[in-house]
C-alpha cells in the first residue's frame, strides 16, 4: 500500500492548488480526480479572475482577498490572463434623467470608487465614468437610450489550464497525480481517517492509499464524498449555465439585467463571447446535468436586452458548473456568500478529513494556502512558508515574443500567438516539435490555432489519458465546428502516442464527440444546426 502525508480528492482549482502548495511545502501528496483536471466547477466557471465587485457590499473581505490573490495569479501565470474591461451602462426611463436615477448613478460611482482602492492589488486600472457619446463610441452595439456607463477592469483566464498548471507544478514537486481515478471509499480506524480506496475508471484497477489527512476538494460532489466517511458537508449547490457565442460580440464585458432583475453579463473571452450566468439551487446529481432550453433563452434574452445584435448570434454551446456556496437558508441564490470555509470532521468521527466549501477561482491560491496551513497543523508539522505566490506555474517563467517565436519555427503568427497564450514560455518546446517533424505543422483548427504539434505536446507532457482531455488542454473540438476537422487527426495522433488500438481510438473519438453533443443539444439552431448535419454526415451512424 502506498503512503502519503495527504490525499487530495478532486482535481479542480482547489484540489490542484492545494496539492501544489502541500508539495512545495515538502509534503508527499496523492491527488485523485475521478475524471479530468478542471472538469467540474473550475472549468465550468466564467473564467474570471475578478475582484468580486459584486460582493463588496456583503463581503468586503472577499473582495479584498480576491483582488490581492488576482495580483498573485497574474504574477505566476501571466500568459493565461487577459484584461476584460467591463461596462455598467446606465439607462434612463425618460428623456432626461430623473432625480432618483441620478442618485443611483452617483451611488454606483461611489461604489466603484471604493472598489478602485483594491484595483492596484490586481494591476487593474481605476474605474472611469463614460458619457453617452463615449459609451457608444467604445461599444456601438449597445442598445439605444443609454446615458452613460462606468467602465472598470477585470481579468479573464483559461481555468482548465490553470488547474493543469497547478497539477504539473505539484508533480514537479513530487506529488502523484491520478486522473480518471475516483476516491470510492474512505478508510477509517478509531474515529480517524487513514486513507482512501480508489478505482481507475479506464483500467478498472483498484487500490488503496494511506494518509493521515484526506482533503476533500471534490466541489459539488463533496457532500457525497463526506457521507462515505460519515461526515456532513453542508452547502447550497447552485447550477450555473453559460452560453458561448461564435465570435466576440463586444470589446467590453457588458453587465446586463435579466428578465427577473438579476445581474448577468456578456463578455469577450479569448476568441469568443460568453453569456452568463444562471444561478439556481441544484438538488440533482452533479454527474447528470445539462443546460435546458429555458436557461438558454433566459441568458440570450438578458444579453440581447443590452446588446440587441446578440439575439441573432450563433450560440455554439451551452455549458454548466455547480457552485459550492456556503449553506444558508433564506437568501436567494445571488445573495449567498462567496467566502470559503474549511471544515474539519473530527466531530463526525472522521478526524483527519478536511473539506473545503465555497470560495472562488480568483482566490484559489489563498484558499489553497489556508488549506495547506491547516493540513500542516493537522499533521503536527511545523509551519512552513508558502511560496505559491512567487514561484511561477509552468510556462509563466518568462514572457514570450510571439513574432520571434513564429518566425523561428516558420508558423503563422496567429497560430503561434494562440499556442503562446496556452503554453507561455513552453510554446518554444511545443513548436520545436515542428522542426523535428514537419508533419506536425498541420493546422488542426484554424479558429483556435491548434497545430498537430500542440496536440502531441499535450499528449506527451500534460497528463492526457482520454481524447476528451484535449478539450480542456487546447480547446480541441470545443469551437463552433464541433471537431469536424480536428477530431479525427487528433484521435489518430493519440493512438500513436498512447499506443491505442484502432478500436480504442474509435471509442475515444465517439466519447469526444458525445461530450460536444451534450453541450450543443440545447442550442442547435441556425448555422450551428447546419454544422451538426455536417458532423453527422462525417461521424454519424458510427463511422
Amino acid at each position, binding site marked *: 500500500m502506498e503512503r502519503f502525508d495527504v490525499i487530495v480528492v478532486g482535481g479542480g482549482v482547489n484540489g490542484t492548488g492545494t496539492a501544489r502548495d502541500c508539495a512545495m511545502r515538502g509534503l508527499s501528496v496523492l491527488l485523485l480526480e475521478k475524471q479530468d483536471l478542471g472538469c467540474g466547477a473550475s472549468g465550468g466557471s466564467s473564467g474570471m479572475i475578478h475582484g468580486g465587485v459584486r460582493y463588496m457590499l456583503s463581503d468586503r473581505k472577499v473582495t479584498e482577498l480576491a483582488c490581492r490573490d488576482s495580483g498573485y495569479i497574474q504574477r505566476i501565470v501571466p500568459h493565461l490572463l487577459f484584461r476584460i474591461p467591463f461596462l455598467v451602462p446606465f439607462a434612463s426611463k425618460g428623456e432626461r434623467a430623473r432625480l432618483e436615477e441620478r442618485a443611483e448613478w452617483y451611488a454606483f460611482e461611489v461604489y466603484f470608487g471604493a472598489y478602485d482602492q483594491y484595483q492596484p492589488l490586481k494591476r487593474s486600472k481605476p474605474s472611469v465614468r463614460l458619457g453617452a457619446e463615449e459609451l457608444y463610441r467604445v461599444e456601438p452595439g449597445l442598445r439605444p437610450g443609454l446615458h452613460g456607463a462606468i467602465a472598470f477592469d477585470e481579468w479573464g483566464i483559461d481555468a482548465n489550464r490553470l488547474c493543469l498548471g497547478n497539477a504539473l507544478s505539484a508533480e514537479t514537486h513530487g506529488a502523484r497525480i491520478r486522473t480518471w481515478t475516483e476516491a470510492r471509499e474512505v478508510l477509517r480506524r478509531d474515529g480517524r481517517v487513514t486513507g482512501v480506496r480508489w478505482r481507475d475508471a479506464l483500467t478498472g484497477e483498484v487500490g488503496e492509499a494511506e494518509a493521515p489527512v484526506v482533503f476533500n476538494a471534490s466541489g459539488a460532489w463533496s457532500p457525497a464524498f463526506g457521507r462515505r466517511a460519515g461526515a456532513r458537508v453542508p452547502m447550497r449547490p447552485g447550477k450555473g449555465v453559460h452560453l458561448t457565442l461564435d465570435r466576440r460580440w463586444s470589446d467590453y464585458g457588458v453587465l446586463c439585467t435579466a428578465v427577473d432583475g438579476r445581474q448577468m453579463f456578456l463578455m469577450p473571452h479569448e476568441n469568443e463571447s460568453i453569456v452568463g450566468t444562471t444561478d439556481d439551487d441544484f438538488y440533482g446529481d452533479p454527474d447528470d446535468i445539462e443546460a435546458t432550453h429555458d436557461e438558454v433563452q433566459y441568458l440570450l434574452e438578458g444579453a440581447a436586452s443590452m446588446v440587441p445584435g446578440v439575439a441573432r448570434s450563433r450560440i455554439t454551446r451551452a455549458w454548466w458548473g455547480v457552485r459550492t456556496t456556503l449553506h444558508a437558508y433564506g437568501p436567494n441564490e445571488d445573495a449567498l456568500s462567496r467566502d470559503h470555509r474549511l471544515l474539519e470532521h473530527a466531530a463526525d468521527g472522521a478526524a483527519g478529513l478536511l473539506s473545503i466549501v465555497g470560495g472562488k477561482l480568483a482566490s484559489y491560491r489563498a484558499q489553497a494556502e489556508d488549506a495547506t496551513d491547516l493540513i500542516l497543523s493537522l499533521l503536527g508539522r511545523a509551519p512552513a512558508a508558502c511560496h505559491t505566490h512567487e514561484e511561477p506555474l509552468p510556462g509563466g517563467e518568462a514572457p514570450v515574443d510571439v513574432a520571434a517565436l513564429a518566425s523561428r519555427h516558420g508558423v503563422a503568427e496567429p497560430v503561434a500567438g494562440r499556442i503562446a497564450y496556452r503554453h507561455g514560455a513552453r510554446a518554444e518546446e511545443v513548436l520545436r516539435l515542428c522542426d523535428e517533424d514537419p508533419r506536425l505543422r498541420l493546422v488542426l483548427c484554424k479558429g483556435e490555432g491548434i497545430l498537430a504539434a500542440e496536440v502531441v505536446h499535450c499528449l506527451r507532457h500534460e497528463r492526457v489519458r482520454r481524447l476528451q482531455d484535449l478539450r480542456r488542454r487546447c480547446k480541441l473540438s470545443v469551437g463552433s465546428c464541433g471537431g469536424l476537422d480536428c477530431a479525427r487527426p487528433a484521435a489518430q495522433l493519440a493512438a500513436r502516442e498512447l499506443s491505442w488500438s484502432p478500436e480504442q481510438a*474509435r471509442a475515444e473519438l465517439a466519447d469526444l464527440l458525445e461530450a460536444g453533443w451534450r453541450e450543443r443539444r440545447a442550442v442547435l439552431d441556425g448555422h450551428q*444546426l447546419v454544422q451538426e448535419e*455536417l458532423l*453527422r454526415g462525417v461521424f454519424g451512424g458510427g463511422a
Partner: protein
Amino acid sequence: MVGGGMAGAIAALAAREAGASVLLARRGPGGTALSGGAVGVAPDAGAPSTVPFALRLRPMEAARRLAALRPAHPYAIAGVGRLAEALDFAARALPGLLAPFEDRSRFLVTAGGGVAECGLCQRSQVAGDLALARGLVAAVGFRGHLGFDARPWAAAVAGMAAAGAPPSAWAEAELFGGPEEGTLAPHELARALERPGAAEAAGAAVRAVLPAGAAVALLPPVLGLDPAVRVLERLAAAAGVPVAETLADVPSVPGLRLQAALEARLAAAGVELVSGKVELGGWPRRPLLVAGQEREARAVVLASGRFVGGGLVRHGELREALLGLPVEATVGGESGTRLAGRPAPSLTRPERRAPQPLLAAGLRVDAAMRPLGESGQPAHPRLFAAGAVIGGYENAADGTGLGAAILTGYLAGKAAAG
C-alpha cells in the same frame, strides 16, 4: 429545378429524358459535394459484422424492408418499385464516374476506419469492395501527412473477416516528399496528384512499400478531382496492383468529383444551368426569380437540400426556406408539423448516436412527390420536392442519403415533366 445536388440533377435529367425543357439553378454546392462519395441506398441495418457477405440482404430487398419498418421514410412514401430503375438511370447518367448498378451491396472502408454499405459506388472505389476483393488488401497511408492513417483502415478490413473480407496489412508511402506536403488539404493533394508525372511517382512509391502478396492497394481519397486526368489508372499502373480509394471526410474529393460530374452531365443534356438563388415568393401567381431574373416555369421541383443545402432553416422554429412550407418532425412515433415548433432539446436525444428527430425533419410529400401544405393537401399541383428537403429520414447519417435523393429526384423529375 431549385438545387443542383444529386436530387436536383437527377430530377433535371429525368425531366429532360421525358422531353421537358429544364432550367436548373443552384446557389452553391450542398450535401452532395460534401458526401463521402458513394451512394448509400439501404444498408442491411440488422446484420452484425459476422454475417457473411453472401447472406446479406441485397439493396432492393433491404429497401423494401426499410420501407415497411419506417413509414415516414421517402422509400415508404414513394414506394421502392422504381428504385432499381432510378439507380440504374443515375449510374448510366455518369458512366465515367460510377460503376454500373448491380443490386449488390459494396462494402467500403470509410476515412475513419468504419465500413459503409453502399448501393452504388465510384469506379475509384470498386477495387476496395470488401465483398469482392480477393488476396491481401494493403492499406497505404502517406508518410508525410498525418491526415490519413492507414492503420484503422487495415483494422476495419480485419474486423470484417468473419463476413468474408480478405486479409489486410498497412504501410506508408512517401508521396512527394518535401516539408509542405504535410500541410496540404485533401483537395490540394488531389490537384497536386494531377500534375504531370505525379501519379506515376506516387504509384512507384506505393509499389516500393507494398507488403508481399498485396492484391489491392487502398489509398487516401485524394486521387484527383478530374476523372479525365485518370490519376487512379496511372497510379495503379505504376503501382502494379489495382488501386482503390477509401470513402472521404469533409472536404471530400470524391464528393467534389461527384458534383462536378453531375454538372458536366447536366450541361451535356441541354439543361440550362444558372448559378444563383431562386426566389419562389409569389409563384405560381407571379413568375419565379432566378438569380434576380423573372422566369416562367410550368412546374417547380424543390431540391434545395436539408440544412447544409439550405432548403430548411431553423431560427427558433423549423421552416422551409423558399416558400415557408410546413416542416414535419417525428418524435417517438408521433409525427406532425406542430412538433417542428418544439425547442431543440425536445427534438433531440441525449445519446449522440441515437437517431435525432431534429435532423430528420423535413417536408412531407405525397406519393407523387408533391409537398403537403398546412391542410395536409398538396401545396400546389405542379410543385414537387426531391432529396434531403423531404423529411422522415436522417439523410446525413442513416446510410440512405444519396439513394433517397436519386429515387425522389427521378420520380419528381418525371412527374414534373408529365
